[in-house]
């Protein structure tokens, strides 16, 4: 049986490279539709939240896509491990690990889950400024990597 795959990007597209996750989804979706691959879905939002446990429960493989401030070489793809959340002051978003844990606790399902972390550089409220050039390059590299890898996953 074909695997059901979800790509889920998150970030604020109004904040320069914080849009990397959502731009990844837009371009990957266009590419997938051109290639006519089946069983691949896309979603995006400002951030992850508790209802995403329900969303991912219907898939075999999940790729979360987010911008990163960490010192990465372009981008990374890492498997997501379960994580217990702490109530973090006033934070309203949760991590991929918490989404996965919640999915396991509520739905008894554990999709194979990965995080595509794409390094970004600028995060300001600047109109008419999209992704930085370096962020754009990292995005293209991440897309190329996943497009080449996709036949292995399917």
């Amino acid at each position, binding site marked *: 049986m074909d695997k059901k795959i979800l790509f889920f990007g998150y970030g604020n597209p109004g904040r320069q490279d914080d849009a990397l996750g959502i731009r990844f989804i837009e371009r990957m979706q266009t590419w997938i539709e051109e290639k006519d691959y089946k069983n691949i879905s896309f979603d995006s939002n400002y951030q992850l939240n508790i209802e995403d*446990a329900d969303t991912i429960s219907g898939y075999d493989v999940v790729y979360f896509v987010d911008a990163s*401030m960490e010192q990465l070489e372009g981008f990374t793809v890492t498997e997501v491990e379960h994580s217990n*959340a702490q109530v973090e002051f006033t934070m309203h978003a949760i991590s991929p690990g*918490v989404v996965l844990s919640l999915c396991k606790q509520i739905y008894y399902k554990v999709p194979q889950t990965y995080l595509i972390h794409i390094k970004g550089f600028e995060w300001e409220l600047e109109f008419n400024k999209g992704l930085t050039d370096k962020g754009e390059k990292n995005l293209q590299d991440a897309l190329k990597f996943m497009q080449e890898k996709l036949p292995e996953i399917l």
Partner: protein
Amino acid sequence: MSKKITIEPVTRVEGHGKVTIHLDDNNQVAQSRLHIVEFRGFERFVQGRPYWEAPVLVQRLCGICPVSHHLAAAKALDVIVGAGTGDGLTPTGEKMRRLMHYGQMFQSHVLHFFHLASPDLLFGVDGDPALRNVIGVAIKHKELAVQAVMMRKFGQEIIKATAGKKVHGTGAIPGGINKHLTQEEKDHFLNGPDPMNIDKMIDWSLGALEFFKGYHAQNKDLIDNFASFPSSHVSLVRKDGAMDLYHGVLRGVDSNGKKILNDVDYQDYLQYIDEEVKSWSYMKFPYLRSIGKKDGWYRVGPLARMNTCDFIPSPLAQKEFEIFKAYTNGKPNGMSMHQHWARLIEILHSAEMMKELLNDPDLMSGELTVKGTKGREGVGLLEAPRGTLFHHYRINDDDQIEMANLIVSTTNNNTPMNTAVNLAAKQFMNGQSEITEGMMNAVEVAIRAYDPCLSCATHALGKMPLEAIILDSNGKELDRKLKNG
């Protein structure tokens, strides 16, 4: 030797809040302050932009309450395009916006209660932090976690259906709305498979209220006395005094229930409200001009709305409102933890209002927009989940925004949050020489009751580390504790 304790959450971009608690030589809390390092540049950024872009642009402010900013901006621009001051839209325009707003209120309050507040209630303010979180709720109280997930999802779907998409929605435009609700969408929300339908949402809202009331009966000391203090309260109310989260007149009451802001037109808000700047916080301190800087501060949000309105115009929420009001014999309620009770009543009210609107044929047909004589300036207010939200714009001859002023809900609650922090610190930290995680959480619980939205627009991975630093009177560090690194 006096000490200063700093609890400092750090975020990625927009700024952060920190709490400093000054202890005196006897380890008694002398003073506490909540400092907000708030991103205040947005008003400048929108200057020069075409006014019609504002309802979409303002969603860059925040990834948690973008719908509230979207609608408040649209309401301000309604005035500029001559579509009236909030009640001049077509029935379709106003009702679609209301549905969007109730969807936002519903999902935001659900997230706060189940994700942020319920772990403190279920496991205790000083409970095991490894369990005191949403996963702990899922392990120990699975039915609550399931309800939280599905109620959030329902509210998100309402927003998507009315705003057009989840991220940077475009539904509200100056003078109205840009889409109808489809028959398919209406059927989905009214008659969707269990549990994704509005009747189940109402059932679960009632269940959450029963859960809280049961908890309250067994934990009166915490719920009634934790960070409790008298204050004035401000919110919009409908012209007949009903709760109205989308539109109305501004009403303020003091701690005795006396009206101190008498149902005024919010287009004139600058006549009544001013903001004070204090050296130790980037966030301003709003106050009522008629009372003055010292005593003119007020609370906004769910508790304030219960205190200002005369009734709730939906039957099930009205019953709960009567129980709520009877608890204080009809007097204004100053108990911070009753914010949760009030929030749950608003969840129920929002669900009832969504059902009423979903059955309204105006959502599926009718004129979407209205225009009149264009003006230069407009103010848009609504009751966001966290309280009254102000958007004010003025445009130039080229239709560009030349002035913008925003007073967000969290800013309105600045003094109340500081007051709550001070009380919590005195309750939990007086006489203590060592700061435990439970004590730190007690301070956070006081802040969380107001559900402040400090910095949501960009995100790391949900990380918000808290750092506690103890300094002596000479600035020497005596202790440091890091939480959630």
